[in-house]
């Protein structure tokens, strides 16, 4: 949807506005979104937003593949924190199947989800501040994100597109030195977070640029379907991890930061606090990390060891039954909605099973769609320069937005 003819007639006679297409090839628009602006000098008189530049047909692809094959498509939803998407999808399928994963798997999923959250928040803060001109913060954040990527690489060998979970467990157990590697990184991550804090949080220019910009009042945020840091910045203490607990989040001690103004500055602060809370959860989970298997011991769900596949006929047939077209995992008919707290908000998977080897329907609720839909509302009346921090604060990720 672009600015229509009626729009033009609406705007132009009143003021001498200039129409300006911002994006998709624009440094701040990430190449995947377009803002159609009507500008009155430096002020935004009207705006519409075009999405869909990164549409790949996630839902259709999932319908065409088996339940486990769909996991790699969830990597590409929010590619900054792919593991949370993996976990969310697998939790939904496991609920359909009615299986519980072993405790070690649950703890590892929590640890990696929280580290992914730190990674996502670091990226969001980095990009947002870089786009307002402070390049150095960006590189500090990228340095810290790199450390988490090393941990991700330990888990699954990949860095961005992880494909780490499986229905009923994980692709593999983590290496023996995993807990120590994570423990060693936590103080370093805390140090980088405090460095960012010292550089910008009380910087007068930063506050001037971020305070009272892109304000979203509490009630409107709720009615627009905001979730995640943007909702909490508007003063609603809603967090899926606490309000609809999944995995074993109810066992951990963590706080949910809440903002007061709902402006860009509050969203930044909420993200900064959440990183600290995530690190606290990781520490607690590492302390309690149990030993044991990482996948359910159910031969109709979990693939056998390669040793068995190549070594005996039972293993081979088991592998065959799970992999071959038309066989494999077949959850009972039914439908399920499972939400997880992704870094941007509530990431939901609504899945319908008809008892076949692939989902009948898999709908992903991308947390940044309602946020992106509110962009025009937040930028109209603000200045051109404010578009950048506002757009940065909603942390739009094309992969999950366009599906």
């Amino acid at each position: 949807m672009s600015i229509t003819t009626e729009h033009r007639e609406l705007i132009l006679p009143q003021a001498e506005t200039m129409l300006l297409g911002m994006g998709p090839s624009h440094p701040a628009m990430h190449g995947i979104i377009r803002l159609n602006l009507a500008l009155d000098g430096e002020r935004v008189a009207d705006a519409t937003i075009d999405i869909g530049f990164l549409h790949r047909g996630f839902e259709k692809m999932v319908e065409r593949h088996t339940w486990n094959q769909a996991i790699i498509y969830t990597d590409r939803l929010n590619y900054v924190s792919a593991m949370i998407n993996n976990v969310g999808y697998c939790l939904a399928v496991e609920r359909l199947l009615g299986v519980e994963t072993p405790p070690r798997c649950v703890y590892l999923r929590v640890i990696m989800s929280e580290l992914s959250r730190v990674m996502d928040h670091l990226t969001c803060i980095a990009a947002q501040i870089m786009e307002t001109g402070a390049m150095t913060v960006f590189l500090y954040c990228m340095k810290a994100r790199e450390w988490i990527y090393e941990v991700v690489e330990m888990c699954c060998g990949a860095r961005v597109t992880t494909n780490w979970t499986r229905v009923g467990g994980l692709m593999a157990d983590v290496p023996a030195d995993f807990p120590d590697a994570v423990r060693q990184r936590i103080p370093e991550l805390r140090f980088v977070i405090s460095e960012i804090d010292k550089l910008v949080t009380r910087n007068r220019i930063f506050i001037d640029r971020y305070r009272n910009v892109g304000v979203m009042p509490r009630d409107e945020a709720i009615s627009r379907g905001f979730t995640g840091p943007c909702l909490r910045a508007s003063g609603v203490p809603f967090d899926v991890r606490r309000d609809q607990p999944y995995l074993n989040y109810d066992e951990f001690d963590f706080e949910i930061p809440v903002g007061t103004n709902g402006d860009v500055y509050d969203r930044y602060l909420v993200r900064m606090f959440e990183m600290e809370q995530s690190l606290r959860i990781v520490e607690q989970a590492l302390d309690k990390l149990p030993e044991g298997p990482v996948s359910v011991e159910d031969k109709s769900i979990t693939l056998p060891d390669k040793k068995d596949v190549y070594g005996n006929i039972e293993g081979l047939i088991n592998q065959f039954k799970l992999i071959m077209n038309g066989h494999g995992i077949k959850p009972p008919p039914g439908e399920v909605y499972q939400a997880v707290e992704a870094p941007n908000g509530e990431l939901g998977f609504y899945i319908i099973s008809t008892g076949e080897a692939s989902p009948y329907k898999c709908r992903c609720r991308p947390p940044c769609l309602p946020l992106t839909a509110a962009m025009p509302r937040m930028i109209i009346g603000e200045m051109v320069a404010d578009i950048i921090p506002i757009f940065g604060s909603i942390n739009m990720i094309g992969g999950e937005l366009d599906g």
Partner: protein
Amino acid sequence: MNVLELLIAVAFMVGVIGFVSLFALFAIWMERKVSAHMQDRLGPMETGGWHGWSQTIADTVKLLLKEDIIPTAVDQPLFRMAPYIVFTGALASFAVIPFAANLIGADLNIGVYYLVAVSSLVVIGILMAGWASNNKWALYGAMRSAAQMVSYEIPVVLSLLVPVLLAQSLSMQKLVEIQAGGFWHWTVFSHLPFALVAFVIYFWASLAEVNRTPFDIPEAESELVAGYHVEYSGMRFAMFFLAEYANMFVVAAVAATVFLGGWHAPLPFLELSTEVSWIGSAVVGTAWFVVKATFLVFVQMWLRWTLPRLRVDQLMRICWKVFLPFSFANVLLVSLWLAVKG
């Protein structure tokens, strides 16, 4: 004017152009290294060997060899002329900058006045570039730039008036001469607090004059893509780039000249008088002067890699509501003080 004088003038001109180009190349390399080390990186390390010293030279060669793209819809004469006007503005300022006691292009009796006048040429060049490009982003950049540079000219001039009042002269050499005899005689220290306030205001306002962070909104790359030079490529782009670094040196050099003792050494015995050696005095004076100016250029880079950028209305607010009243009061107080002192 006899032949010898003409030759000296030509030699000086060539020398200045050479110095400006070399300094710009050096400053771009320095900017890369400074930013890299502030961000836990190494910066260019390969080209040319030692710490990638010839990276900028390689870049310049690349820009020279690039295809010269002129979009069809631009206003051709203005588009072609704009980069040279910007560069001329930067270059012309060097005529009155005293590098040493005996090394100055022209010691005009209205040196400061001339400097302020020619450095305003840059605005015209930028406005031409933005308008001629026939591009909305470029136009926005140019509009912001014009508003910003014209506004910040006023605090710059008012704060330059303070040393002018103290020296009772507009000549650049005279402004340096009154600061002789050690760093405590430098204007910035010798007339506390007025000169210090003037120096701080001058330095900040000059950042806006040369479009550096936190006042780099004319080219704010994340908002305006690249601002006024978005349609430029190849050598024309390089001219804008070189002019930016030449301008950085000019404002730093002016600050060093009028506030930080110019070519005087911090301690008197580190200087070489013209009576001892004409050449030696020029070399030592230039060295001190370039060190001071380069230090100020370094501070400009330091700020750029630390601070976010202001918004256009905040920029104007700072200029008209903070810098202007303070610099105006400063000039008035200095005048009163001089009148009382007699």
